């Protein structure tokens, strides 16, 4: 019973975080902020939801698979965000705060 | 007849036609292949929808389940997916070579170059 409510709570929290992440993803002004919004909330939200599912399951094999997904996402999510930010930087995209002239970069790689 | 039960199919047909349109209306060789991809994937969706049985389970035999979806379309579409990616790969290889030979992948410019000589 406790497990059930715990898992429900995780789901709720995870869903809420997902929504905030999406909001940031849609509304934030430049790519780095958006990566931040997605990357950070996403890792936590994903973990929460997967943990919730983990609590729901009884058999061993699904649990192992969920654990595998969880670990994988915890590794790959931040790495992907990092790689993306770095690639964007190398591609010549600059944060908005440092330049007033919008987010269109001068580099040809911008689009 | 029951319109609602066919609605699913019609959406898929719309998808197919969108893909088909990209294939025949676009002049960029890569985009044509993308359209072909969409077209084929939509055909797969049609097949798979037709194999679905309401309240059926995935066709993996389990104790206590008696209604399964039709496995045969799944088998056929597995093969068709493989055929699709094979075609895409060969098409892309051709596009890469065409770009080397003509310097462009736009149909109209290739035609121009061919007519010029």
């Amino acid at each position: 019973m406790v497990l059930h409510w715990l898992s429900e709570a995780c789901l709720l929290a995870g869903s809420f975080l997902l929504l905030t992440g999406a909001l940031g993803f849609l509304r934030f002004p430049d790519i780095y902020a958006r990566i931040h919004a997605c990357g950070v909330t996403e890792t936590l939200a994903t973990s929460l939801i997967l943990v919730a599912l983990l609590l729901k399951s009884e058999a061993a094999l699904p649990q192992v698979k969920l654990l595998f997904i969880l670990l994988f996402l915890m590794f790959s999510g931040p790495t992907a965000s990092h790689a993306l930010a770095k690639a964007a930087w190398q591609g010549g995209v600059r944060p908005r705060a440092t330049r007033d002239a919008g987010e269109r970069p001068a580099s040809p790689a911008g689009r | 007849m029951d319109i609602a039960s066919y609605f699913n199919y019609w959406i898929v047909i719309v998808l197919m036609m969108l893909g088909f349109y990209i294939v025949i209306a676009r002049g960029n060789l890569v985009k044509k292949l993308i359209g072909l991809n969409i077209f084929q994937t939509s055909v797969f969706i049609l097949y798979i929808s037709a194999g679905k049985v309401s309240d059926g389970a995935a066709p993996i035999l389990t104790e206590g389940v008696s209604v399964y979806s039709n496995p045969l379309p799944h088998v056929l579409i597995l093969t068709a997916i493989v055929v699709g990616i094979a075609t895409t790969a060969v098409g892309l290889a051709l596009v890469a070579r065409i770009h080397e030979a003509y310097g462009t992948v736009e149909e109209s410019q290739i035609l121009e170059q061919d007519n010029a000589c």
Partner: protein
Amino acid sequence: MLSHLPILPVLLPLLGAPICALLRKPVAAWLFACTVALLTFAAAIALLAQTWQQGVLSYALGGWAAPWGIEYRIDLLNGLVLTLVSGMASAVLLGGRASIWRETPEEKRSLFLVAFLLCLAGLQGIAATGDAFNLFVFLEISSLSTYALVATGRDRRALVAAYNYLIMGTIGATFILIGIGFIYMLTGTLNMMDLAQRLPALTESRTAFAGFVFIIVGVCLKLALFPLHLWLPGAYTHASSMVTVFLAATATKVALYVLIRFSFSVFRLEFSTLALPLETVFLTLGIVAVFAGSLVAIYQPDLKRGLAYSSVAQIGYMVIGVGVGTVIGLQAALVHLFNHALMKGALFMALAAVVYRVGDGKFSSLRGIGREMPLTCACMLLGGLSLIGVPGTAGFISKWYLVVAVADREQWVLVALILAGSLLTAVYIWRLVETVYLGVPGPRQVPDSPAGRAEAPPGLLAVSVVLALANVYFGFDTRLPVEAASGAAESLFAAGQP
């Protein structure tokens, strides 16, 4: 082993291709590919003989009975097509080495042969299978390898031709897939015999109608029937010579086989409400194809391209035979299927020999070549005469049967049109003769031999001569194609009897 004969014509090239890929030396790969093709040919002949004696042979792959497993069902028609395809493949491989070696860079040769064997396996698989979906799979094997083969042509336009072929071919294959999906959803089976038993109850079904239309349109794309022929001239013109010989002699023939199989065996056209409109469509498109193809062929500056358009026209004749919708009509279509493979085989083979010496197939480079390569040009001439339908050649036989079939339906206008079409053929063949024999050789660079051009290399020449003589032989001894075709046509119709 005899009971496994139905699978052998497909299995041999299918096994041969990966083994050939392991052979690195082009010569070894070529010897191996020749062996495989000849064995396949032998198996196909044995199979044809067996079907002749025993009638339909059924072979359950994997040991699973028909509607659950995949079945090979070989009747005379399958046997004829299998023999034709493997025979042409052997001819091309045996005779074409010089040409392949000339037109393909060293490192590509063995892979070229692998792709060739794969194409053979695909075509044989289409011609042998009794399962609608299996047909689609093998269709894709043959198509993919054909795209690669066409792309190996020397000109960069070969790449574009291969790409266009790929797009149109894939649309065609997807249409076939949609059609098979519709009829599967209606009947629950993919086996052709099983479909044939279940479809007559569904003639009123709009789904069956749509399924049939999609299959037919898809096959016609592969067949290059007139408005859907756009890929063919480019692919034939820019592919390397041996690929053109093989494609012209087999690929469209196999597509025609599929058309006949679906229209008569699976859908049993004569019982469905579709029969009438479809006959009209086939007859109209056939006639338009004959005239459009021939007229365009007359004005081509390049012989290879001209012959490619002539193929469009000849496909028109075959489709007319199908559209007549009687046993004799179907027989005429099948006879022409066989004979046309011989004519185009001979013509393109001789042309390949000329291209080997001259460098290209433009009329301007062919002037006066008849004096330098008399034997090759004689072969070309024989092939051309057969294409026109001069008495004493194989082409005459197929035209004769076609005219008889159409006359039998008392469609005299059509008879007149077919004969007029032959006249057009005569025009572009005459242009060939005029250039080759009467033209004055212009100043041109000789690619290889400084002492003027001699005959083609022995392999190419021998195969050209054999194919050209086959055109004459089958013009007199018509038993093989005519009896096989009539047997096949009758069994196609007999199978339709309720």
